[in-house]
């Protein structure tokens, strides 16, 4: 039974990582304002959101199954405060940190129409920290961390993110074409 929990825990974690990789890449594509074949612009944003919420759901399942798995030795405090865990505290701590970041980003995103674009944008920047923290947690904490297929998957995810972020930093990225410079920072 415990093995089943453990497998499910790892599985949901891995798929969540893939979902967040897709989310991040799509987020960068969406921000560029360029239409994607088949999806258009609105479809890119929709898919970005779907992938993010799916990933969040998987993380919830990931955390729940591992909580009920005695092998993982997780206490409730480990879901909020990082680096207090019994098993591989550093890597687990990164997971906790990622969970904390995810919780804030998710809540603010769902409430974005209330908090306004400036707060939403500021918090959303945290996703650039969220992804690498989640990745490191997966590589360090996941029992699959050392296995070949997981490493290959990690390489694919890292390549995708590096490519997307690299593109994000090029001057020609901002297709929307105008740069808004209010006369004073509004």
């Amino acid at each position, binding site marked *: 039974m415990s093995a089943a929990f453990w497998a499910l825990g790892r599985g949901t974690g891995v798929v969540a990582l893939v979902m967040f990789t897709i989310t991040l890449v799509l987020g960068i594509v*969406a921000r560029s*304002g360029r*239409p994607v074949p088949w999806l258009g*612009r609105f479809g890119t*944003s929709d898919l970005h959101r779907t992938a993010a919420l799916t990933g969040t759901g998987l993380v919830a399942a990931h955390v729940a199954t591992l909580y009920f798995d005695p092998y993982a030795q997780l206490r409730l405090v480990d879901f909020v405060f990082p680096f207090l865990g019994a098993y591989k505290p550093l890597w687990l701590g990164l997971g906790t940190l990622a969970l904390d970041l995810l919780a804030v980003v998710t809540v603010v995103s769902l409430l974005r*129409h209330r908090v306004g674009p400036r707060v939403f944008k500021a918090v959303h920047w945290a996703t650039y920290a969220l992804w690498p923290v989640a990745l490191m947690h997966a590589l360090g904490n996941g029992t699959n961390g050392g296995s070949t297929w997981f490493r290959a998957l990690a390489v694919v995810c890292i390549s995708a993110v590096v490519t997307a972020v690299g593109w994000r930093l090029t001057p020609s990225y901002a297709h*929307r*074409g105008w740069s*808004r410079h209010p006369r004073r920072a509004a």
Partner: protein
Amino acid sequence: MKTRLHVDWTRCDGHGSCAELLPRLLDVDDFGFPVSRSGERDPVVPARDDDAARHAVRNCPLMALRLYDAAS
């Protein structure tokens, strides 16, 4: 009571998702910004475009859109 679509121009960034979702209501200008086809500042959203309009409001990455009910 009519539902109208309002653009907060101080937020709009010319992303263009709204014009994709509401092609009957909106066109795009020379610079990528939405233009109301009816010429009204806040175009009326007919009932059949209601879902698409709500989708557009949710989808706008800068939260520049809102729907409101107006007497005329």
